């Protein structure tokens, strides 16, 4: 029963997000709308954690299972990838390294600034 209740809450939330997503004048993933909605409901304690906990944990723990069927359909796109394989590999490698570097640098600088501000507060 518990699982059915939790699943009902989560699926209802997904359905509402899908409606919101369709009504929006721009394209925005319904999953992300639902994620924001659930986060808001949890933070405001309108939905208690134990009302969704088990189902959410099950879904996130087995996340890759749910995109297995979508990935299998890639066979229908093999030609597209084969044709551009080298540029795709270069793009993935370069952008992944760049993203890592820029993020690490930004966080390091922010951490230094935050520590300095907090240090001043503690000194004062």
């Amino acid at each position, binding site marked *: 029963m518990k699982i059915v209740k939790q699943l009902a809450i989560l699926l209802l939330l997904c359905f509402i997000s899908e409606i919101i997503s369709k009504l929006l004048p721009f394209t925005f993933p319904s999953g992300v709308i639902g994620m924001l909605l659930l986060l808001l409901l949890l933070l405001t304690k309108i939905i208690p954690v134990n009302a969704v906990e088990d189902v959410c944990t099950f879904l996130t723990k087995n996340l890759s299972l749910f995109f297995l069927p979508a990935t*299998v359909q890639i066979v229908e796109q093999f030609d597209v990838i084969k044709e551009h394989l080298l540029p795709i590999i270069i793009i993935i490698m370069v952008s992944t390294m760049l993203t890592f570097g820029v993020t690490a640098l930004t966080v390091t600088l922010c951490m230094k600034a935050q520590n300095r501000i907090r240090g001043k507060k503690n000194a004062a």
Partner: protein
Amino acid sequence: MLHDFTSSALFGLALSLLFYLFGVWLNKKIKTPLVNPLLVAVVLVLSILSIFDIPMEDFMSGGSIIAAFLTPATVALALSIYNQRKTLKAYFFPVVLGCFAGSVTSMGSIYLMCRLFKLDETLTMTLLPKSVTTPIAMSISEGLGGIPSVTVAMVVGTGILGALICPILIQLFEVKDPVAQGVATGTCSHAIGTSKVMELGELQGAMSSIAIGIAGLLTSFIALFL
């Protein structure tokens, strides 16, 4: 004859679950990001389909039932962010600004390189969200006019690459701050990278998993302006 059985929704369902479980088991046995559970399962499912000449529609009659849980799984990520709210509060600005800078860099560099290699619009939109977690990347790709199934492959490829090179990049760029190590790994290589950076410490793991959600969120907002 065989088709009478494989066209049942139970065929695709059972096949997916079985091979997914095998992939998870194999990944635990052989501890390397190269043996990714999803990758193992996809290769096995495709092999079965091709050996027995089973049409994709047959597999998808069960597969689509599993795929229907993609949106709920994305929504469920809210609980992971909620559970990390204390850590997020303590490092709010470093995390959010870091994820934002990383997401912009990821999408910007992909866009520029796609232009450089003269890749078409569809492929560009397919590649753009490749650094964020799969369910979010798929819906962004779909919204922009990309090919979601190819996006999944790019996302998994990026994750595996991240898990392999992030520990090296941490040494190379001399990233000493544990928060920076975690956020950078999560932003560029989502959950697969996170599983690796967890080995460095608890704070790194927590920061990396927060970064998955935040970077996914920010990337879908940035995609609005494309």
